[in-house]
């Protein structure tokens, strides 16, 4: 009896040791990047805004590319705004945009790499619709190393839990008055380019800038005149392939501030094809002709 009890204890002991040993062997990555959510408050009242910052902790890894899909419960949250202002991602193969009503896909790069703990990717502002609880999560995420090969690194994506109820305390985002954005978008230099790999080798325009306040809302391209503008995305196929007119590129932020950049005509018309020059010549010839006629008439009269 005693022996069987002893054997039972020994077996339990070895089992416990084995379990602990197995748990130790399951290695949690030490250097895994993390895409996480940050907010002032996880509890809000119905009708209140809920601002969530999607951020990156590279955990000492040098990374230069991030992508993923944010999923949120659209039955209790209404998407109000997505803001890329002050993002560490400078260029976006896929700007964060909503699709299917409850998903925000994004993909961006930061040339030269980034190696910090609190890198803002973008912020999302929701409005709490009704009471309830939910989670915001990230799926299909990838974080790539700045190693010239695009090597992926491990990434953690903890969920963000929140709740909406009437008795929730007033959130800080309600108390703080948001600063009005009066600054123009950053200076930028659009470039005209050509490549056999796209647009059948035709000239196209590339442009990009940032806005540190409210974020870029859209760009407009005006070919020849500021009165003929279209909303455009880079790369933009130029309508005027002769490149003989000025091009104006306007960056507009979400507060309505604008910055306009002018690209002069790359192949201006020769003077003999310039209507203004021709008009001056014609007027000049008419005036000269009239004056000469008067002089000759006066000489004719005198000679008689």
């Amino acid at each position, binding site marked *: 009896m005693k022996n069987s009890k002893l054997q039972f204890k020994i077996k339990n002991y070895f089992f416990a040791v084995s379990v602990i040993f197995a748990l130790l062997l399951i290695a949690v990555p030490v250097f895994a990047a993390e895409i996480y959510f940050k907010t002032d408050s996880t509890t809000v009242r119905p009708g209140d805004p809920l601002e969530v910052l999607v951020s990156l902790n590279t955990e000492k890894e040098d990374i*230069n*590319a991030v*992508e993923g899909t944010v999923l949120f419960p659209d039955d209790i949250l209404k998407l109000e705004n997505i803001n890329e202002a*002050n993002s*560490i991602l*400078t*260029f976006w*193969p*896929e700007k964060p945009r909503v699709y299917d009503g409850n998903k925000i896909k994004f*993909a961006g*790069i*930061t*040339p*030269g*790499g*980034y190696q*910090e703990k609190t*890198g*803002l990717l973008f912020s999302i502002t929701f409005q709490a619709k009704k009471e309830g609880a939910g989670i915001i999560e990230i799926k299909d995420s*990838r974080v*790539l190393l*700045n190693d*010239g*090969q*695009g090597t992926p690194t491990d990434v953690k994506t903890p969920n963000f839990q929140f709740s909406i109820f009437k008795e929730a305390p007033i959130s800080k985002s309600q108390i703080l008055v948001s600063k009005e954005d009066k*600054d123009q978008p*950053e*200076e*930028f*230099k659009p470039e005209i*380019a*050509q*490549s056999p*790999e*796209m647009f059948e080798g035709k000239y196209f325009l*590339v*442009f*990009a800038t*940032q806005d*540190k306040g409210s974020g870029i809302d859209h760009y407009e391209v005006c070919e020849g005149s500021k009165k003929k503008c279209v909303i455009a995305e*880079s*790369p933009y196929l130029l309508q005027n392939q002769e490149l003989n007119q000025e091009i104006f590129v306007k960056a507009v932020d979400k507060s309505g501030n604008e*910055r*306009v950049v*002018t*690209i*002069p*005509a790359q*192949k*201006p018309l020769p*003077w003999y094809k*310039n209507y203004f*020059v021709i008009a*001056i*010549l014609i007027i*000049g010839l008419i*005036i*000269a002709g009239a*004056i000469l006629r008067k*002089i000759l008439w006066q000489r004719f009269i005198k000679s008689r």
Partner: protein
Amino acid sequence: MKSIIVTVFLILLALLSGSVYASIQEASTSLICGDGICSGSETCSTCPADCGTCPPSGGGGGGEAYIPPAPETKVIFSGRAYPKSTVTLLKDAQIAATTIAGVDANFQMSISGLSAGNYIFALYSEDKDGRRSSLLTFPVSVTAGATTNVSGIFIAPTIDVDKSEVKRGDNIAIFGQSAPQADIVISVSSEEEYFAKTISDRDGIYLHNVDTTILDYGVHYTKSKASIGNLLISSYGQVISFKVGTITVLKEIKPEISKGDLNNDNRVNLVDFSIAAYWYKRPSPPSSVDLNGDGKVDLVDFSIIAYFWTG
């Protein structure tokens, strides 16, 4: 009467020549706000970045209060690159300024007219043989009206080898450029990482011969970093590879076209990003755009472009 005719013709001639001159010169005149040139229709009110801030309006005699101009928002970068090298500053991945380092490799440059916010600045330099250093990035939070100093920058050395393949037992030369009289540490990957030390000369040039007897057959990677005293230490620069085999193949000593330079203009910038963006998630991209050769243009290809970025 004659004077009237002469006057009219002179005016017409002036108008004509002005138009002709403008049409010829227009292509070379850069009328871009932010290019540092106050030209054409740019004024202090439409483009203060190029034309400066407008002076306060005159006080008159009525006791108007003088409002001093707002303090400038500025960031100053200083450090060491290579002797007389061109140092390029990127602001959010686009070229913002360039300068030439001194004979002692010291450089300083500033950028002003910024808005308050978070920026990613990056610096790189080019050595005497046209080799570019790796990008050194600095996330900076800029406060309105304040000057931020980023000092103690030490751009990593450039690196190259004289052979793409070396017969085991022969020497391979690893060389490049850094600041003058800097301590250079060269790392060569092998079964165990192999380290060598040397000192750059007064022109910042360094060279070290590695006896490949100590290396295994196969591909190896090498990189270098520099230090001056214990105060200034650079990070490791770009990594390059060479092979230890049974034959020796000399490498042409000229800068290679960067991977990511999709339009072959010797730069990796927004144009190359845009070409890749055009083919993003589209079927059958050209092989020149599909940088990792996996049959598609996705985040990996953009990561490669980001690594070789020059602005």
